[in-house]
């Protein structure tokens, strides 16, 4: 285990250490004193285990590939934005746009996520232990967003082919987002994701939301929705 003291080497020092990985080099890292700094552990391109001991700012784990990143604290805007693969686990809450445009991998937020969680997600799986703010799953293209708490206004607005599962209350659905039947494959998916996340919830308590596919091609009779 290599210790990276951010207070001493700065964000660039930390990131360059995580980017300089060659075969047989150290795979386990602990980042100390993250001090809420931005862009920590972004752009990793190797199967590393990274533990961050504290809170992080914007874009932690951005564009992650392969790495497992555990954040022992809260995370700022865009945690795991555009990640491709790997696993990011936030012990605390996250700010806006968690997992934005992420193409793959697994993002777990034990606490609450703010607005726009999973915005434009393109294949990532996200589990939120608490609730999410407004506009979550906006234009979500594919992947699964599992919300154990409540969801605020405009959930899944203009959603494409992603699935949103909510256990609690949904304040309001966004344009073209409807409640859909939870089929056995969906229950199996929820169970699997909850199990991998380590968050305890009953998979049968969730409802599913997805696209009504009414806005996929232009139609003047949908005028009210545009």
């Amino acid at each position, binding site marked *: 285990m290599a210790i990276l003291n951010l207070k001493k080497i700065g964000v660039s020092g930390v990131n360059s250490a995580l980017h300089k990985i060659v075969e047989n080099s150290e795979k386990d890292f602990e980042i100390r004193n993250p001090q809420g700094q931005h862009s920590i552990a*972004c*752009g990793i391109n190797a199967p590393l285990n990274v533990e961050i001991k504290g809170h992080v700012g914007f874009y932690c784990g951005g564009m992650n590939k392969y790495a497992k990143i555990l954040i022992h604290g809260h995370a700022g805007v865009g945690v795991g934005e555009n990640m*491709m693969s790997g696993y990011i686990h936030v012990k605390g809450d996250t700010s806006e746009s968690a997992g934005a445009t992420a193409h793959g991998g697994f993002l777990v937020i034990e606490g609450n996520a703010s607005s726009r969680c999973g915005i434009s997600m393109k294949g990532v799986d996200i589990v939120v232990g608490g609730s999410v703010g407004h506009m979550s799953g906006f234009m979500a293209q594919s992947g699964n967003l599992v919300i154990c708490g409540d969801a605020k206004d405009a959930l899944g607005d203009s959603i494409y082919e992603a699935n949103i599962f909510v256990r609690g209350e949904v304040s309001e659905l966004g344009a073209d987002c409807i409640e859909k039947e939870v089929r056995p494959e969906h229950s199996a998916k929820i169970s699997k994701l909850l199990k991998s996340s380590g968050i305890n919830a009953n998979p049968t308590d969730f409802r599913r939301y997805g696209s009504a596919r009414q806005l996929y091609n232009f139609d003047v009779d949908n005028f009210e929705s545009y």
Partner: protein
Amino acid sequence: MSEDIPKTHPRKSATFDDYTLSEIRRAAATGIYDIRGGGAKRSVPGLDDLLFLGASLSRYPLEGYREYCGTDIVLGSRFATNPLKLKIPITIAGMSFGSLSAQAKEALGRGASIAGTSTTTGDGGMTKEEREQSEILIYQYLPSRYGMNPDDLRKADAIEIVVGQGAKPGGGGMLLGQKISDRVAEMRNLPKGIDQRSACRHPDWTGPDDLEIKIHELREISDWKKPIFIKIGGARPYYDTALSVKAGADVIVIDGMQGGTAATQEVFIENVGQPTLACIRPAVKALQELGMHRKVQLIVSGGIRNGADVAKAIALGADAVSIGTAALVALGDNNPELEDEYKKLGTTAGAFDDWHEGLDPAGISTQDPDLSKRLDPVTAGRKLSNYLKVMTMELQTIARACGKSHVLNLEPEDLVALTVEAAAIAQVPLCGTDWIPGKKNEILLS
């Protein structure tokens, strides 16, 4: 009797002209706004309204072809450890794979590489063909993040964060179902055949303070090597430029309202944003006030057609220009040789702009495999490089006539304006006078 009364000539309304009437009928029949490609077609004050003075007794010209006139530029020297070195100050603008065929993207790469300049990806990601054929490739970072991935980011030579486009400042991308082929759909992680309306705001930042943090992230991911461009539609060039500098840009691209698009609402193209000419001076002023002129490079685009346009943009303070539409025309777009096919599409060569429908007979703005095959990327690439070289020689011709050993030495003092509007906008004197509208007469030209 009444037959003997002379009739007045039928008179059409200037307000309700034929085009307007046809658009009202079209809207009534279809219930959808008109979508098209290209840039603003209306006449706006432009670079044609400026003239160079040339040399005389007070300025010595340089000998054509004999005395050297440099055209090389460096982009991204502010923070990036690997700035771009281009042989000419004309780059190829970002045009997406999806809006353009893979062959067209490859041809753009080939042409740009022969001419020693860069090309740019677009809303839809990087194709293998364009990376292989582009010596210098700029990777666009757009609100949709279609095809955005760290592998291509690392393969890119620079990153361009797209805030807006001149054809539609404040609008998102648009690619209609007809052009969503299997390959396009896969690159964008979306079902085939659906209309794609990309977001107009970035999903994980809003405003200049966030942008600064976003730029920091992209620099960290790319280990501070790659220049970061910010592309802005011509809306508020003074403030947008100042804020881009503050956010940490290496290069700023300002795209005026004549700038092309693959597909946007006609009402947007023609009525939102400022003409290219109107964007240059405010942007340069912002850079000068911040002590960043020629340190943060300014690229101007939107309706650039020839070496004179390039020279004028540079004289007003730009470091380079970027071209979209003109590059497509060089590849073969709107070629009169295809007139029969344009007629079948209900249009004529020179006016074909239904690029969103994917039926381009030139094989450029299409995803149809048979149509795309019509464009030979090698021949088309060669045509583009010829055109880029001609523009560069035209630029040098003007620069030498103004006595400049490098094109970047062109300056506003080399210019006059043909109209009062252009004089006011470009802040150069009206020809034959020393009058710059809005300025006190400080210098006497005559």
